[in-house]
């Protein structure tokens, strides 16, 4: 983690809330919001990102859960939306990114184990950072607010615990 920060163009400034600057954060958030907004205005669809991980399984498994109408009827546009995410990030990479592909210093087992919990939890909760966080809060849903507060609390606790006990990411 230290090595990652040291190679970043901006250095950490512990006195600042936004040690890497703030414009790209706010600009990125506005682009994300614009994507969700454009999807809704043009097609009426609500663009949370975790459902695609369930709806895509409906192509591969006959389990009744995955064959629910809400997954089968939306699996096509959800995959196109996911392809759009890859395309948009690719455009950013070509225009503004480093010449080499981005890498992640985290160990593979941490990504895999975290991913398993993220996938299971987000689908059980029927929403993730974008589903409850952006779409749910954007439509002023109280359950989504409670979901956001819950996952922020456990995420803070876990990340701080990992920092303290494993030293990973320190």
């Amino acid at each position, binding site marked *: 983690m230290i090595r990652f920060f040291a190679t970043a163009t901006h250095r950490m400034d512990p006195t600042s809330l936004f040690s890497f600057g703030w414009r790209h954060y706010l600009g990125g*958030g506005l682009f994300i*919001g614009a994507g969700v907004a454009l999807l809704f205005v043009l097609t009426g669809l609500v663009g949370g*990102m975790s459902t695609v991980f369930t709806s895509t399984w409906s192509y591969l498994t006959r389990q009744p859960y995955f064959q629910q109408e809400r997954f089968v*009827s939306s699996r096509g546009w959800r995959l196109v939306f996911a392809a759009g995410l890859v*395309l948009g990030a690719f455009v950013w990479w070509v225009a503004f990114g480093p010449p080499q592909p981005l890498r992640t210093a985290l160990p593979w087992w941490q990504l895999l184990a975290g991913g398993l919990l*993220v996938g299971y939890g987000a689908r059980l909760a029927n929403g993730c*950072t974008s589903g409850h966080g952006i779409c749910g809060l954007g439509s002023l849903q109280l359950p989504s607010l409670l979901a956001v507060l819950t996952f922020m609390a456990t995420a803070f606790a876990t990340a701080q615990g990992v920092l303290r006990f494993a030293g990973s990411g320190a």
Partner: protein
Amino acid sequence: MTAAVAGSAAGTSRSSLLRGLAVLASGALFGFGLALSTMIRPEVVLGFLQWRDFGLMLVMGGAVVVTAAAYAIAPRLMRRPPLGDHFHHHVSLLNRPTLVGAAIFGIGWGLCGVCPGPAIAGLGTGNVDLLWALGGIALGALAQGWTARSQFQPASNP
């Protein structure tokens, strides 16, 4: 997608093509924003969760404000979206699975710094390491659906 175009035969392929392009362009804005905001870097997300940098609050805040405006205004200006059958709603229920699932999701997010959107978008920057997280999320979603089938009731579809 199928529901919107099932009714009319003429002009169906053209409107479904336009609709697909609209979905793709919307996703591209979303993915560009995830990359620009550096949320596709797990290190940045973990730095936020470890309270070393609070930029992700600006990402979430900016996204929510724009989304809330669109969700509030569009249905008042148009009876139906130009490329869809009706305006959908995000359905969230206040129940045990929502809160338990959110808690589990947060533990995973705090462990790896990757959530579903960045796991997908990050591939556009050639970050193959994220395939571990992407595979984990896909298997987690499979496990959730698999274990939920005992409670699943076909009649309760929204």
